[in-house]
């Protein structure tokens, strides 16, 4: 029989797994890996508290909302259906967002005056497209690196894709994520349709793969710029939070005079 401790441990794992499925829409990277979830705890009665902090006070409120909305949906999936509280910290619109989130409002409700359109549908689509392309590029390059010919790669259907092997690294990490994006994008696709198609659903001729990859690279270069910047800024912001009287100061941290503390494990 499961003990109370193991139930709580399992729930905590489930909580972090669910949160790990929420992506920063702009970066297509899990919010947990970006370190945006500063605290996720279960209280004695099983309810959940999440503290959320972005790299800067200036991060776009629409991205903040999309992520918090993702968190809200993830928490709704938890097996024990807990009550929860999600709080955004140190953001220029923190108050508006927190109040709106608590009341279950939509983005349009919260930002009626500032948002010209009433929903974020088009923006979500743009981000879905970028994620699709970034994931696809990583897998394509990985397969090339693994020694497959362009012809073999472009001829792959889903069963072949599923058994294809890749070296550990970015491509391996993106392989299941590309699969998910593909199926979300083309729910009606047949199992023997080619796996690598454009966002519009066109086949990619072998001769065009180089140009296609160059285009995908452009998409990734943008996303990585934000990702690298956000990571750097987030790291600095965390360090600044650690400044307490008698404790090491920010300069101690940046001069590496303080031993690194392990990031929270997921």
């Amino acid at each position, binding site marked *: 029989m499961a003990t109370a401790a193991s139930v709580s441990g399992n729930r905590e794992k489930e909580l972090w797994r669910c949160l790990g499925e929420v992506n920063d829409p702009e970066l297509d990277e899990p919010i947990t890996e970006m370190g945006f979830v500063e605290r996720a705890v279960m209280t004695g009665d099983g309810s959940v508290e999440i503290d959320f902090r972005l790299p800067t006070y*200036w991060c776009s409120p*629409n991205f903040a909302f999309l992520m918090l909305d993702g968190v809200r949906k993830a928490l709704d999936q938890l097996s024990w259906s807990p009550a929860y509280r999600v709080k955004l910290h140190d953001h220029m619109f923190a108050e508006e967002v927190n109040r709106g989130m608590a009341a279950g409002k939509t983005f349009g409700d919260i930002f009626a005056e500032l948002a010209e359109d009433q929903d974020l549908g088009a*923006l979500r689509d743009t981000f879905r497209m970028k994620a699709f392309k970034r994931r696809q590029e990583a897998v394509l390059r990985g397969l090339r690196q693994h020694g497959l010919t362009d012809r073999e790669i472009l001829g792959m259907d889903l069963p072949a894709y599923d058994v294809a092997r890749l070296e550990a690294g970015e491509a391996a990490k993106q392989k299941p994520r590309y699969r998910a994006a593909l199926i979300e994008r083309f729910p009606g696709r047949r199992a023997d349709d080619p796996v690598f198609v454009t966002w519009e659903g066109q086949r990619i001729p072998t001769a065009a793969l180089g140009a296609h990859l160059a285009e995908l690279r*452009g998409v990734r270069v943008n996303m990585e710029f934000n990702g690298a910047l956000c990571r750097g800024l987030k790291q600095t912001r965390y360090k600044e939070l650690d400044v307490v009287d008698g404790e090491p100061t920010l300069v101690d941290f940046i001069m590496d005079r303080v031993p690194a503390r392990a990031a929270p494990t997921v």
Partner: protein
Amino acid sequence: MFRTPEGKDIFVVDGHTHFWDGSPENQKNIHGKQFIDCFYAYHTGMSPKDQLWEKSKFEKYSADDLYRDLFIDGPDDMAIVQSTYLKDFYKNGFNTIERNAEVAKRYPERFIVNGAFDPRDGEKALEYIHFLKETYDIKGVKMYTAEWNGASKGWKLTDPDAYKCFELCDKLGIRNIHVHKGPTILPLSKDAFDVHDVDHAATDFQGLNWIIEHCGLPRLDDFCWIATQETNVYGGLAVALPFIHARPRYFGEVIAELLFWIGPEKILFGSDYAIWTPRWLVEKFWAYQIPDDIAAERGVQLTDEIKEKILGLNAARLYNIDIAAKKTALASSPFSIAAE
């Protein structure tokens, strides 16, 4: 002047520098604190460890610090010092043209002082542009579309009021429009880094040069597309260049894209001082080579000749700097800071 390890002298124009006061005494509200904190996070997040400043110096440095870091310890021959007012965040503004003009007067020949205006001020903005031209004879301006102004949380280059201002700039010969393309807040439902307003403005104002700071990153693809179509659109390397230290391969991908799309004539060096200092940036840039696989895929190389263009020749062209005459003039400028 930057002397290469081979002994060649390279004329350096730092296309993007600041002389700001972000100190707590000058902060008007939480936004002012958060703004300089964000800059400081860029500084600490992307500088080599031995180049880090303490927070208090970063918040407010002296004119002598600026001069030393750029021209004595640093390799710059000239610097374009940009004005960013942010009067909603700072009591006396963040770096106003008055503050910039003062330092330029103290150290003649070194600085090109750019102005700034806010088109949302309407008629007043037009009057102010006249004032800037008459008082400071500005050759360029810095546009910060993310600046707040009362209830407004940002603006676009294509706003009708902005167009009136650009018409006036064109008429008065203020040819260089530096645009910071960062996250504007409005409209909230769009991708906040949209650069498409640059496309329209550049098409409609062919007589102006549009220098897009940070190369529109993170919208490099859109920026490249626009800059390829529009002959009068340039890219400033500020913020992109520091990646050369933390993520050199990534920098290679960025510079390869820029060279492939917009070419070596339209890329401008900028340190974004005091977020970063120019010495390490220029040294690393001179020593840098694009990784072979990226260079091969794009068919580009970062040769010494191209580096020289990016470091100074391109900006000199935009600002009509006669390099030979300037070198003579600079020969007599101080190479140490006199004791106060």
